[in-house]
């Protein structure tokens, strides 16, 4: 989306709301998609659109865990560390991904493809252990299953992440 198109899109979004700041999360998600993460520039731009100060928007940005104030990879892998996934060896899922991707939790692979993050219970407990890649669920994980999923993403044409 071009800069002007994005502005028009965000303006329309804000106009559809009862009050502009009601759309703060939607605006941050849209900017994240555009910039790859909520950069300082994106934050300032979002604040302008919403009629907030950058600090007011920062207050929201830092509250929510699906808003990224630091760069993330094209695909964000959220491994569920809820109690049910814990029971099903979420620690081994993390360890497996660390080794396959060569990163620690919170880091991004050097090719910019994957960021590895823990996430609070995602509501996929009947399929534990579970993870999400850009908010797509992958449950009943096995080591070889995880490898297949990673391969699939490595060969996928670039898609814009749903949440950034």
């Amino acid at each position, binding site marked *: 989306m071009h800069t002007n198109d994005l502005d028009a899109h965000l303006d329309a979004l804000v106009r559809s709301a009862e009050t502009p700041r009601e759309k*703060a999360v939607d605006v941050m998600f849209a900017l994240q998609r555009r910039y790859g993460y909520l950069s300082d520039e994106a934050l300032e731009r979002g604040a302008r659109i919403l009629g907030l100060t950058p600090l007011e928007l920062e207050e929201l940005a830092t509250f929510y865990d699906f808003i990224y104030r630091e760069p993330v990879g094209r695909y964000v892998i959220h491994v569920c560390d809820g109690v049910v996934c814990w029971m099903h060896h979420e620690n081994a899922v993390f360890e497996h991904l660390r080794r396959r991707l060569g990163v620690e939790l919170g880091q991004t692979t050097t090719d910019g493809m994957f960021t590895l993050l823990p996430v*609070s219970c995602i509501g996929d407990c009947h399929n534990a252990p579970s993870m999400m890649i850009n908010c797509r669920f992958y449950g009943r994980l096995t080591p070889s299953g995880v490898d297949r999923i990673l391969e699939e993403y490595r060969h996928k044409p670039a898609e814009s992440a749903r949440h950034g």
Partner: protein
Amino acid sequence: MHEEILLQNRRPDRPATLEEYRASGGYGPLAQSLRGGSPRDLVAAVKDSGLRGRGGAGFPAGIKWSGVPVDKTEPRYVVANTDEMEPGAFKDRVLVESDPHQVIEGITLAGYAVSARKGFFFVRASYEHVAVLMENALEEARRAGFLGENILGSGFSFDIAVHRSAGRYICGESSAQIRSLQGVRPNPSKGGPHLTEQGLFGQPTLLHSVETLACMPHIARHGAEWFKNLAASEEAEGTKLYTVSGRVSRPGCYELPNGTSLRKIIFEAAGGMAQGYEFKACLPGGGSTSLLDQSFLSASMDYDSLKKLGVRMGTGTVVVFDQDTCLVGAVLNLTRFFARESCGWCTPCREGLPYIRELFARIEKGQGAPEYVDMIEEMADQMRHSYCAFAPGAVAPIQGLLAHFRDEVEEHLRRGGCPFNAPSAGPWQEAWTSYEQERPGGEA
């Protein structure tokens, strides 16, 4: 055999379509209410049905509905809470995924009952697919005339917007959710008038869990008495969506008569324990409820029956632990979750939960001391002084652990570490063992 009401249109692989929902009688109650019934009839039906909020608190919906002022304060709002972030809970997800139009009709009926103009479907970030599903269903409903201006020619206008959240457990708390919807940092707020008088944007607001609202079309269609009689116990009403996860053979979401016993939920609906495992404990309603031992299995899973036993049902989302799973480890995991999700507004919660987490981590690692248990108990008790219900919920599993499984905690102290090292079956256990052996200083 019991009857499924809320999940009657559930299919294994896809949501029910608008046509399928209509074929099951869907949107009939809305049409009928708009044609002949008054909003007051709906409020009365909800009151008579005894319907209690399914989101965790179990507050009578009828009382909430009557709390919306009958004067002409406009606009009014309905909020459908689909923030479901309780560890172990996925029932609202299954509900919306199965039959999105049932949810739309429920929200719209509530809107008609309290003369609202707009509803919000508040949905957590990880349920992006549910948000998209709902947006599509809303568009279908608008095209079919069930939503929007002048619904079915009745003069009543109402629309629903999907509001995406960006994470955080506390957004499920009603006052925090209202702030989140308004684009304000969502720590809970307290004092002042009820949300039904001054809620969203300071206007009268009816906020319910999406499961509560989904009961509406059925109450409107079949009546309060019918709904009451669906329950399994005297104290309860309707059916209830229970989820079962953990070490059972058929984890999933089951709609059963409200007040079905914990034993039936776990050992009949969910097929009992997974092969090779024995029951040790369960959380009856997700991470913010007490850990229970097998003496509770005969308890009826409804708000009042459990309350009599001093237990909260929470969301009715059961998590089952087996004999080889360490409950100190489980509670440590839960305390980590709550310490992370605390909004940080008040001191007991912000400071106390990480402290308790640290003490449990030491006990689990074999660095515990007997006085830690007393400290944990004391701090857990003090959580009742915190600002909202988050911290008392966070310590519920801890209190359950100390009440029913204290010997397991003491065993950690005696042995100087976790006594559970029986490897569980499965590919991850194998992977973990090989990783452990490869570690510097590992067993290899």
